């Protein structure tokens, strides 16, 4: 095992190389661009055998990913913000066609007004496309999630595309020490893709057909059933990864210091590190607080969340995005999942457009939650502006 100090984007490129992706169609956008630049360098140096496909837009990039994946190739792309929004029609198309494409989403705010900094509005707006959606806290987790993503996506019970998120700049352009596994060990965890091509002149097929109302619903139901299967496959892949490489992420969500906790804060992405610090300080002062880190947003780990929340009185949810007219996007899902439990859920919207979510902000969120044990708050959703 070799440790190197690398930015999140470099780490993604290493993850893609180690996963032996065969084709990378992509279009540049800040803060994603350096992922594909690094992959281009690997290919140019002869360190990676893959085709880098330059296309005219993100829409074309996802179109090319769909074509490549239909050929049975292990396919990767990366994007951010407006680029991901531009792909949106085809992200539905990729999932509906059951293609195991893996995409890195370097989270960035949506315009207008223009803003290139960290914000999860881009990836959470892809919620209903049928893609699995995973979040990463550290650059090491970025590497490990990238490798796991290919295995989860190609699992015969899943066969759905996977996007994994890293917060723009907070991870993408921040350097941290990352352990790089050996190629041979990754090959053991992630064998070569053996999917037969669907585009084959010797065995012609008809794709993208028009099922009538009596048939269509079955295809959608199968996507939901595959999401259920992913609820087993994600933790299984993570356990197997831990067995081979010594690092695991607790599957779909990580309960942190929930023993005896009355209050917890749930969040996703790089801010989890700050929350860990605040939990530690508050615990030292005797406050019964903990954290829940959401790793898998789709499928949403409702059962696991209910188990983690047994015994809690109040759960705060910090969202780096907003469904305007409703509140935090993750907050809404958490509220729905916890409906059978007697846990009050509070929503906090913070850190949009790269604004720092500071220790003080997290401290304030915990204070609001602790007060809500006794006093019903005037508002369930609060903006940290």
């Amino acid at each position, binding site marked *: 095992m070799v440790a190197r100090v690398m930015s999140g984007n470099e780490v993604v490129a290493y993850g893609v190389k180690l996963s032996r992706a065969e084709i990378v169609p992509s279009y540049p956008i800040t803060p994603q661009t350096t992922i594909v630049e690094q992959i281009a360098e690997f290919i140019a140096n002869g360190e990676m055998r893959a085709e880098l496909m330059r296309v005219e837009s993100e829409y074309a990039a996802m179109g090319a990913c769909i074509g490549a994946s239909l050929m049975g190739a292990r396919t990767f792309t990366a994007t951010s913000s407006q680029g991901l929004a531009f792909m949106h029609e085809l992200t539905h198309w990729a999932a509906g066609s*059951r293609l195991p494409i893996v995409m890195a989403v370097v989270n960035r705010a949506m315009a207008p007004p223009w803003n290139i900094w960290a914000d999860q509005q881009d990836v959470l707006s892809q919620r209903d496309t049928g893609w699995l959606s995973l979040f990463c806290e550290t650059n090491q987790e970025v590497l490990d999630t990238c490798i796991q993503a290919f295995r989860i996506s190609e699992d015969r019970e899943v066969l759905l595309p996977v996007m994994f998120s890293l917060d723009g700049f907070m991870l993408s352009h921040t350097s941290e020490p990352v352990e790089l596994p050996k190629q041979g060990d990754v090959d053991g965890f992630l064998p070569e893709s053996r999917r037969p091509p669907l585009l084959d002149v010797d065995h012609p097929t008809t794709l993208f057909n028009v099922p009538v109302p009596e048939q269509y619903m079955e295809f959608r139901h199968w996507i939901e059933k595959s999401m259920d299967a992913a609820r087993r496959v994600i933790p299984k892949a993570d356990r197997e990864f831990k067995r081979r490489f010594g690092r695991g992420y607790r599957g779909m969500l990580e309960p942190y210091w929930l023993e005896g906790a009355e209050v917890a804060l749930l969040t996703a992405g790089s801010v989890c590190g700050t929350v860990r610090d605040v939990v530690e300080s508050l615990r030292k002062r005797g406050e019964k607080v903990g954290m829940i880190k959401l790793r898998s947003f789709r499928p949403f780990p409702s059962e696991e969340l209910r188990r983690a929340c047994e015994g809690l009185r109040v759960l705060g949810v910090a969202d780096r995005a907003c469904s305007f007219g409703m509140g935090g996007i993750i907050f809404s899902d958490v509220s729905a999942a916890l409906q059978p439990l007697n846990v009050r859920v509070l929503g906090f919207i913070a850190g949009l457009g790269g604004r720092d979510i500071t220790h003080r902000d997290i401290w304030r969120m915990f204070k609001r939650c602790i007060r809500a044990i006794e006093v019903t708050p005037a508002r369930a959703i609060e903006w940290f502006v």
Partner: protein
Amino acid sequence: MKLTPGAVITEPGSTTRYQTNGWRTFRPAVDSGKCTGCGLCWLYCPDAVISRGKPPGVDYRYCKGCGICANECPAKAITMVPEERG
């Protein structure tokens, strides 16, 4: 029909089992006296239901009645006739 994930049909040419003539409200009727046999209707038909000849043949099992052939015919030999009047 067996449904497959991703709605993939693995048997080539099976679309011919789906006769699309039910979509039609107007049918192309060819006046063989006016037809010059130029083949433009055959060339333009988006469903390949016209066979080349003088007059051309129309496969009414699949013709959807779009009217492109009548529009393109330089000799005005094709007219679109409402189905209910045959």
